[in-house]
């Protein structure tokens, strides 16, 4: 699928075919997409543990549910638990930056050298950063960037996906992750039981309220011609609309088929 079409067709899918297995290679592709994401200082804080729902004991699955994600995690055949590993910076001590230097990504043209990494970047910037109370926020941003690529890959593979919270204490029984890893979100993956449009592209705040040119308060000018181009390319698809009888019928049929409340 073309990139803009993938972005355009992504939805938070909440209805999955519960018994249709997801191929291992498709899960791998999701993880591979996460791995090649942009990441500050090439640290790659994001870690993921894949668990198939049917490998979770029913009693534990019950304990993993909360009032807003219970149906999603029960329907999705694959759970990918995303964590951030805050220890990675002090494990690699700048070595991945030096790798970037060696392959010509970080160059002397921009001030980079092995000596700079060893004597300045790691000891004076990165190591102190790990003690900063905002460190988890910084790494969470990068983990989000990586997870987003995985989400898009899921849709590129014809799958559906939805990020939800998870109950780390219960999930840890399966994932057995180190105690210092920060639990973020669970990516629920499976074949969508919803139609591809899933009711249409979700409403979003106005562009002008979100993005600015030069300074806050000065909205970035939105060129209608560009919007038209993006409609043609598939980044914009059918907008979801209220009181959509077709969507209501789809959900009612799904509720019946999957025994969900209506």
């Amino acid at each position: 699928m073309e990139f803009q079409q993938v972005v355009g067709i992504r939805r938070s899918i909440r209805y999955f075919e519960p018994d249709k297995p997801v191929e291992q290679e498709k899960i791998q592709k999701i993880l591979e997409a996460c791995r090649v994401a942009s990441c500050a200082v090439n640290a790659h804080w994001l870690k993921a543990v894949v668990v198939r729902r049917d490998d979770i004991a029913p009693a534990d699955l019950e304990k993993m549910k909360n009032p807003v994600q219970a149906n999603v995690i029960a329907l999705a055949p694959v759970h990918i638990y995303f964590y951030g590993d805050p220890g990675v910076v002090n494990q690699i001590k700048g070595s991945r930056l030096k790798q970037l230097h060696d392959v010509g990504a970080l160059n002397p043209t921009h001030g980079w050298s092995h000596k700079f990494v060893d004597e300045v970047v790691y000891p004076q910037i990165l190591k102190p950063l790990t003690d900063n109370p905002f460190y988890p926020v910084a790494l969470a941003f990068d983990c989000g960037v990586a997870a987003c690529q995985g989400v898009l890959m899921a849709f590129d593979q014809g799958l559906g996906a939805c990020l939800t919270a998870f109950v780390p204490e219960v999930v840890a029984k399966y994932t057995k992750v180190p105690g210092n890893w920060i639990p973020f979100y669970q990516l629920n993956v499976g074949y969508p039981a919803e139609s591809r449009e899933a009711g249409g592209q979700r409403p979003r705040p106005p562009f002008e309220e979100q993005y600015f040119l030069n300074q806050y308060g000065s909205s970035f000018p939105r060129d209608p011609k560009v919007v038209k181009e993006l409609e043609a390319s598939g980044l914009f698809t059918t907008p979801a609309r209220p009181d959509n009888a077709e969507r209501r019928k789809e959900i009612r049929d799904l509720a019946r088929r999957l025994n969900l409340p209506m």
Partner: protein
Amino acid sequence: MALDKPLTDYDTVKTWDQGLRRQWGGDPLAEEPDMLESLREFCEFVAEDPDAIASKLFRIRKSDGERVLSVKWRTHYADKVKEFRARSGGGPEGQRKGSAVLSFMIHNGVLIQA
């Protein structure tokens, strides 16, 4: 426990009915009478009427007088729904009956999945 009036006379059942009509159009409780029957069975199971169930799911917060969801009672009724499903034979039939009860709670403003 026998209900002291027809199920559809309870305020919370009227609210459910209105919510279903607004959400799905038509007259869902008439089109799918099993839903009312499931709620009736659940009321017998917990020995409470629908209004009593719904009223327990909310409480008045002492600090500001706001009406808020009671986590304690939501957990209680979520567990009761699970028991009710199992008691109804589990499987799709139990799921369907449990989902009818959840629908009643949802349309009365209770955020619940179980």
